[in-house]
């Protein structure tokens, strides 16, 4: 088994890198894949919180990098899936505690044991970004449909082009069909046109996602959520299936269908 190492990055903070990492990881695990999540946001770790695994951390990424423990010892098994593991970041150090060579070494150690290694990248373009990217073969760029996030995603894609890495894929997070229809935010097509990279998937903006993160349970576990479906579709695309993009439009309620049938404008 030779795993793919995929870095999940965005440039701008707060667009949902960690949520995306946790959910793609969970969705892949749901498909029976062996997945390892690596949190590289040293000093501001929160992938463990989103996964609800905070209380189980003993060793972390820096311990593994510096040889205080074996990489395998630092891994935490997920509550829900045996095939999903997390390598948490250190909370007491900063980004310079690890260098790209150490990251590569860790990824290479894990690679034979997993199908997917997802690396959650910190915001910014400094040391933390360089560390996260150094071990990866592929990249997923997460953005939201607003100008600032797209600008930063563009910058990140430019930086990734200089790395020895496959062309990045795009995930557009927090898509709001109601706002983009009125022209208040960019729509997904605008984002893809500007960034000129392949779209891997889009995630609609939903309350469920926030609620799930609050509970420490990834939304991908919830079968009734459209955001969850978005993440599951991304996982299937990563496995090589061709899954059509789902419509952003919400299904009309029975009542509004009746209204339009009778020609009443809703």
């Amino acid at each position, binding site marked *: 088994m030779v795993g793919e190492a995929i870095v999940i990055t965005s440039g701008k903070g707060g667009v949902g890198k960690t949520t995306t990492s946790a959910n793609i990881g969970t969705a892949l695990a749901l498909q029976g894949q062996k997945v390892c999540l690596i949190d590289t946001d040293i000093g501001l770790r929160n992938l463990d919180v989103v996964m609800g695994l905070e209380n189980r951390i003993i060793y972390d990424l820096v311990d593994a990098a510096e040889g205080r423990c074996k990489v395998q010892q630092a891994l935490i098994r997920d509550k829900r899936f045996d095939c999903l593991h997390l390598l948490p970041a250190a909370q007491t150090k900063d980004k310079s505690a690890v260098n790209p060579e150490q990251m590569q070494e860790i990824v290479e150690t894990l690679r034979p044991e997993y199908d997917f290694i997802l690396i959650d990248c910190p915001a910014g373009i400094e040391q933390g970004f360089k560390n996260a990217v150094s071990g990866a073969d592929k990249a997923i760029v997460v953005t939201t449909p607003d100008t600032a996030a797209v600008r930063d995603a*563009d910058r990140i*894609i430019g930086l990734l082009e200089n790395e020895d890495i496959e062309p990045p894929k795009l995930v557009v997070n927090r898509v709001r069909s109601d706002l983009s229809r009125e*022209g208040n935010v960019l729509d997904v097509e605008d984002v893809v046109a500007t960034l000129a990279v392949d779209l891997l998937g889009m995630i609609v903006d939903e309350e469920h996602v926030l609620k799930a993160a609050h509970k420490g349970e990834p939304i991908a576990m919830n079968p009734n959520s459209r955001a969850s479906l978005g993440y599951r579709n991304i996982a299937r695309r990563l496995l090589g299936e061709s899954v059509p993009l789902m419509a952003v439009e919400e299904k009309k309620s029975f009542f509004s269908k009746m209204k339009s049938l009778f020609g009443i404008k809703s």
Partner: protein
Amino acid sequence: MTNNNGNYVTIKGTKEGLTIVLNDQCSFHELLEELKKKIEREQRLFENGPQVEVRVDAGNRYLSKSHEEEITEVLNKTGSVRVHEVHSNVMTKGEAQEVIEKATVTSVTQIVRSGQVLRKTGDILIIGDVNPGGVVEATGNIYVIGALKGIARAGTEGESHAVVCASVMIPKQISISDTYFYAPEKHEKQEQKPAIEGPGYAYVTGEEYKAIAFEETKMLGHYLRSVSYT
């Protein structure tokens, strides 16, 4: 013994004014001496008339900057002569290289993304977009086969006849030599409008108050021809 019979410097009258032809085989020292003598001898001739523009033709002699200055100084001292141009058929390899660079079009197939700076001597042809936050700089013209949404700086070494041409013209900023164009402020939540609908180019217009104007690409040939005469 040097042959100093006044063969090294010839003064010719032409349609455009006086041309001083310098021999390109003798030493520079001899040349300068003779030029001084000749100017002294002809002082009377130069003195009374109105100021004349002269062109200096050095033939196949390579003139360094300091040589050129010496010649110019000797001539300008007379007061009634002003050196318009010092011409020589010879240039150094370095200068030739520069001329070639300035005359070449570098074509680049990439998207110039936020934070990236593409800087070239001569013209640039970009096959791709220039995204917001991306910068393209050229000493000559800039052509974008795609959307220009970032910053373009043409004629960065002072060429004010340079143009910025793009298939989709939505620039944040354009500068040509030292004339600037800034995108109009966005109103409310509206998208930035193109500076011109469809493919267009930006150029410098106006005599006293220079400004950047936009025109449809089909007029570009006309513009380039009109500026090549001046």
